[in-house]
């Protein structure tokens, strides 16, 4: 019987011993964060975000015998998903990031739901204009609310670099979303 509060490392040990139910619990525990991260890295493509998340879990399954318990399984999964995202972005790189398309401006009308959709689109476009290195930090920090140390572990960069990239990303977003700031 598997307890819900068993550590990831313990579940990986069980998975390596052939317990697929333990691996299923790992999937259920981390799948939503991975999907949100991948989907945002890819500019909102949730189908591909889900595909890449599945890919990360498959890689974890394939490495279950050599996995070393470090208490950082979540970071391992985020790192693997990030690499898969970079590969996917490289393959789709020929299409330019719609540089000529202006960020939508605030709507003048009162329909708040329409405006909300427009804000979401403006934010998505602004986030996608960030370099992948900064985008990943911003998403993990702002959307997933990870600490700098956790992001540092996941992306294998120093905490100082995390802080610096986040500051740059916020400054760039601030410029791009200036029209929305006082709404």
């Amino acid at each position, binding site marked *: 019987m598997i307890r819900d509060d068993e550590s990831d490392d313990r579940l990986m040990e069980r998975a390596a011993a052939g317990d*697929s*139910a333990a*691996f*299923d619990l790992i*999937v*259920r525990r981390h*799948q*939503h964060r991975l*999907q*949100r991260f991948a*989907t*945002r890295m890819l500019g*909102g493509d*949730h189908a591909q*975000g*889900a595909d890449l*998340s*599945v890919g990360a*879990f*498959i890689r974890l*399954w394939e490495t279950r015998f050599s996995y070393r318990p470090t208490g950082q399984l979540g970071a391992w999964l985020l790192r693997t998903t990030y690499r898969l995202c970079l590969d996917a972005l490289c393959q789709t790189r020929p299409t330019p990031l719609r540089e000529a398309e202006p960020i939508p401006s605030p*709507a*003048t*009308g009162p*329909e708040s*739901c*329409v405006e*909300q*959709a*427009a*804000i*979401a*689109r403006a*934010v*998505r476009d602004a*986030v996608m204009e960030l370099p992948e290195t900064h985008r990943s930090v911003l998403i993990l*920090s*702002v*959307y997933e*609310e*990870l*600490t*700098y*140390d956790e992001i540092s572990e996941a992306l294998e960069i120093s*905490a100082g670099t995390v*802080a610096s990239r*986040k*500051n740059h990303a*916020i400054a760039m*977003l*601030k410029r791009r*979303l200036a029209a*929305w*700031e006082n709404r």
Partner: protein
Amino acid sequence: MMNDETNPVIEALASAWTVPTFDLSQRVANAIGASAPVVDGSSELLDEIRAMRREMQSFRQSNALLHEEVLRLRLELNNKKVARLAPYAPTEGLVRLS
């Protein structure tokens, strides 16, 4: 180090961009050659819930598309001159849609 450097305005704006997530456990189970364990033997109910979630997701996507179309039409109304859609028809209140 804590994540204490925040910009409330930007982070509030960022929260407008939400993304959907799905239950991937069955896909992963299939991919690794295992089958996801059944909770309380209620597989039919779980399947039904998953189907309903997919349907809700589909509605959300349609809704988002509708909102974008409303926005587009509103911009059309604000920015485009009235145009005749059919010969000899009155032009009042008409806009070109494409």
